[in-house]
């Protein structure tokens, strides 16, 4: 079936280290992917996106990599800070009538001081 999923439910990193959060998707027709950050009691917050015609996109301290061959996405956070602690979701934006988002199950990032 079609799904967007995450490999690790919880990731614990030392402050200052780099974090890598992974995501697998199964629909090869998907053409747009988004990473969201969700802090406790808040809605998903847009971090970075990538189109399927790209392999890599960089933002401020964040990089998203897309490997279409194995249907895999990753989010890299450089120099992880305590404020990065949150749940991270990848979402697949389906090329259909409404561009609804299909979310993965989320990875909780814990930053150790």
């Amino acid at each position, binding site marked *: 079936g079609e799904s967007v999923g995450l490999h690790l439910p919880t990731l614990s990193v030392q402050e200052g280290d780099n974090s890598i959060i992974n995501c697998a998707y199964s629909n090869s027709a998907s053409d747009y992917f*988004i990473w969201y950050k969700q802090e406790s009691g808040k809605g998903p917050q*847009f971090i970075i996106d990538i189109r399927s015609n790209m392999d890599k996109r960089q933002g401020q301290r964040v990089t998203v990599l897309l490997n279409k061959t194995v249907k895999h996405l990753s989010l890299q956070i450089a120099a992880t800070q305590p404020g990065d602690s949150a749940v991270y*979701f990848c979402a697949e*934006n389906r090329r259909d009538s*409404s561009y*609804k*988002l299909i979310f993965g*199950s989320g990875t909780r990032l814990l930053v150790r001081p």
Partner: protein
Amino acid sequence: EPEVTQTPSHQVTQMGQEVILRCVPISNHLYFYWYRQILGQKVEFLVSFYNNEISEKSEIFDDQFSVERPDGSNFTLKIRSTKLEDSAMYFCASRVDRGGNQPQHFGDGTRLSIL
């Protein structure tokens, strides 16, 4: 920076009662969405809305649910007769237009508790 706003932040309702969740999308956005998130689970799509009509709805969005854009700014989700399993966070999102790849922007949600 413009944002999606939702009210109320928390709604407690007796089972069987009607509830209306309200959202003000970002002003120049044309696509509107409702999602829900049951505690500890992933965010699930409910419905999308464009040009004053539903574009797509999920199997969760049954006859008890309806959406409306009563004026130029508000976007509402109504649950006609609430059930215990409707307890969840409900998120509204909006998107600037249909063409191309544009991210959806989310509000901070309404926590709906059905007693």
